[in-house]
């Protein structure tokens, strides 16, 4: 197995984990909290809010403008 495949599998595994958690949080919200409910707590801090918003905005900028 090449290093590239291992890298791609790593990203795929993380993406699948996120999707799995998202589905689980809707099917069993008492066992797995929804991402938005976790964000609602951690984003009470302004520094966290700004860091998250900037990171999100940068993803959009990077893929749609910054070429």
């Amino acid at each position, binding site marked *: 197995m090449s290093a590239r495949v291992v890298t791609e599998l790593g990203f795929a595994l993380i993406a699948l984990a996120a999707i799995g*958690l998202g589905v689980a949080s809707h099917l069993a919200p008492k066992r797995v909290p929804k991402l938005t409910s*976790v964000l609602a*707590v951690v984003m009470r801090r302004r*520094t966290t809010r*700004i860091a*998250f918003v900037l*990171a999100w905005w*940068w993803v959009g*900028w990077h893929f749609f403008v*910054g070429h």
Partner: protein
Amino acid sequence: MALSFPGRAGRLTVDLPVVALALAALAHWIRGASADALIFLVVTVILLITERRRTSEESFTAQPFRVPGYTVLAAATLVLAFGRDSVPVAVAISAIGLAALVTEWRDPSLPPDRPVPRRGWVWSAVGLSWCLWELISFVYEQAAGGLSLTHPTMSDLVDPLLTSRLAQAAAIAGWLAAGLAMLRAAAAARRP
């Protein structure tokens, strides 16, 4: 103060989001994206300055800024019409980012009196795993002179998927929908 958690005397801790922003600025500088590095650095510095100022409950805005859901469709239509790397899309994304930043900057931090939901750490684990994996790929990429075929970053993997305008429109709709969901969660955090 941004460099410590207020009200926790004896447990002086570095504010991780501020550190993450500074490290992101450094990473952008290393990869040669000086404009991105400057944006992250400026935001970090302004954040440090604003967090030093004392704020009161009165400084909270009465109503959180609301973005209608149809903006997702509008953004997708814009990309479908002009494609990425066009001036209209650049203006739209800049305006969206600026509006979101100003909206979230208006209100100060709230007291940490709400517990993180039980098992909330699983989401942190996924987020940190992605950051770590991306960092490993980034280091390998830089060591390979900027283009790594053996350890591609997320950008290297996603970018080829965005060649058609249809894929770009779907991607920007997903990006904006995710951002709006995050902003709504942040607005929920400010409700009493």
